[in-house]
């Protein structure tokens, strides 16, 4: 086998290991799915009636209109929440003993991290399916074509890939699993400071500028355009640039942390 074939085979082995972990201990996956579902139900049934009336230009108003508006926001909460799982699983791997065994074996350096990242990506997609299912069950009616759906999945997957690498880096940077489960929390907050839950135009100046320029807004707007109509404009390209930028920077940071960690760990 060539060295590329080895890298691929080792990454696949690590991926199988991570999927085995997820299947054997599904509570983490369920917890990651729980948060966006609770937000969905909370926002639609508690705040939705009132918020929907305030939406201009989104159907006839009311709870139904808000459900249509909020689902893209919920989908990016899902992505952000699922990324938390990566930090936790990476950190618990790094603080456990088996990582030292991997480091003394002739296996591709990237394989351990690749296994985590791809495993988390598949986990995120599974959680997204669950969340979309619940949305449909409570009355979400997108008017998207199959091609639009495909594009939406692509946008979500790319954004998830970026946040997962970021979360992997945060997991590597953390000294303990505890810290690792806390530091990426800000990711689940950012969707609320975007156009995910209310239009940015309703926010006070300052907060509005922040909301308009942070990465979650263009991703949400692109999804909204693809799933329920509305203009996408430059949002798609901005969303893609953000995703690629975050993924690249986080990847480089993660690899650096992974290679440096070997000098620092006692025993």
């Amino acid at each position, binding site marked *: 086998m060539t060295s590329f074939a080895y890298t691929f*085979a080792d990454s696949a082995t690590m991926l199988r290991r991570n999927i085995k*972990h997820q299947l054997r201990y599904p509570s983490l996956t369920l917890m990651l799915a729980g948060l966006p579902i609770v937000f969905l139900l909370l926002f639609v049934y508690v705040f939705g009636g009132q918020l929907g009336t305030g939406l201009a230009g989104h159907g006839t108003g009311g709870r139904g209109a808000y459900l249509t508006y909020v689902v893209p926001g919920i989908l990016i909460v899902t992505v952000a929440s699922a990324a938390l799982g990566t930090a936790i699983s990476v950190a618990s791997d790094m603080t*456990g003993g*088996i990582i030292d065994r991997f*480091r003394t*074996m002739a296996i591709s350096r990237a394989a351990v991290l690749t296994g985590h990242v791809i495993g988390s990506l598949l986990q995120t997609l599974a959680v997204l399916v669950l969340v979309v299912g619940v949305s449909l069950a409570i009355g979400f009616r997108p008017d998207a074509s199959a091609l639009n759906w495909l594009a939406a999945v692509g946008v979500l997957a790319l954004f998830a890939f970026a946040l997962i690498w970021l979360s992997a880096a945060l997991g590597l940077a953390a000294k303990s699993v505890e810290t690792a489960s806390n530091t990426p929390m800000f990711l689940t907050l950012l969707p609320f400071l975007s156009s995910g839950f209310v239009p940015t135009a309703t926010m006070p100046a300052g907060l509005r500028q922040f909301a308009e320029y942070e990465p979650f807004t263009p991703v949400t707007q692109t999804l909204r355009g693809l799933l329920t109509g509305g203009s996408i404009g430059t949002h798609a390209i901005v969303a893609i640039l953000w995703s690629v930028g975050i993924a690249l920077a986080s990847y480089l940071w993660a690899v650096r942390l992974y290679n440096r960690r*070997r*000098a620092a760990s006692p*025993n």
Partner: protein
Amino acid sequence: MTINPAAPAICARAVRKSFGEHIVLDGVDLTVAEGTIFSLLGPNGAGKTTMVRILSTLIAADAGDIRVGGHDVAADPGAVRALIGVTGQFSAVDNLLTGEENLRLMADLHHLGREAGRRRIAELLERFDLTGAARKLLPAYSGGMRRRLDLAMTLVGNPAVIFLDEPTTGLDPRSRRTMWQIIRELASDGVTIFLTTQYLEEADELADRVAVLDHGRIVAEGTPAELKRRIPGGHIQLQFAEPDALQAAAGMIPNASPDDDQLVLQIPGDGSVASLRRVLDELDDAHIDVEHLSVHSPDLDDVFFAVTGHAATEATAPQEQEALQR
């Protein structure tokens, strides 16, 4: 990748390593011949694990020339990794998998292929007496089972050089015997074994050569027999009822040191049955009654006292304190 037959399996020259101000290895030289068992003996905090981590490419030395199987660990860690297997001081298993899945993971990472992998796993489970627990998750394993699985995982890739960092610390005497048996079998298959231990007895049982590590330096090196010859700690202790008997016995036996207050006579020796019999026969012939006899076999403390002039426990005290302060 193979071992260069001309070179020793492990060769380290002037290895230095500090963590901040703390000098852990201060110019260590080691040579391990292919197919032998080498034991690095030292108390807690001596730097054994640090040495193993350097030799197994986990951390870099600050200075020194280190070759494993003829390959430089700094310049060509990949070639070294292809040769070695490491069972660290702390368990290196995947706790979320079963024993069998852990071995499967190793087989896949060694690219053994489906069929060869399956055979190797079955063989190792059998050899390490883990077949019954193969499908159990790791939390259900005892300490001894965990250690055996750890070693089995190390062996999946048929390494030519194996590092075992305190393989029996914390094991009950029976598991320790089992582990010793396994290590001997590996050596008889021609595998080179680098073993660290805190127990003189263990080094004596297993090793072809022993090096004693103290304060970051090798203070003694040789075969276990050579080492033990330098240790005055092993002795027979005879207890007498009468001061006269003690004096008479002390007069008869060379090198014996009497303690008049305790009525005890210490006789240097290894405690072998032959030497005991000789002493007792001599005393019997002279009609001297012995109340009580005990044998003291040399331990790590005796080694340390003999080669460094201080006790093993004293040697670690300041380092341990530093470790706690961090």
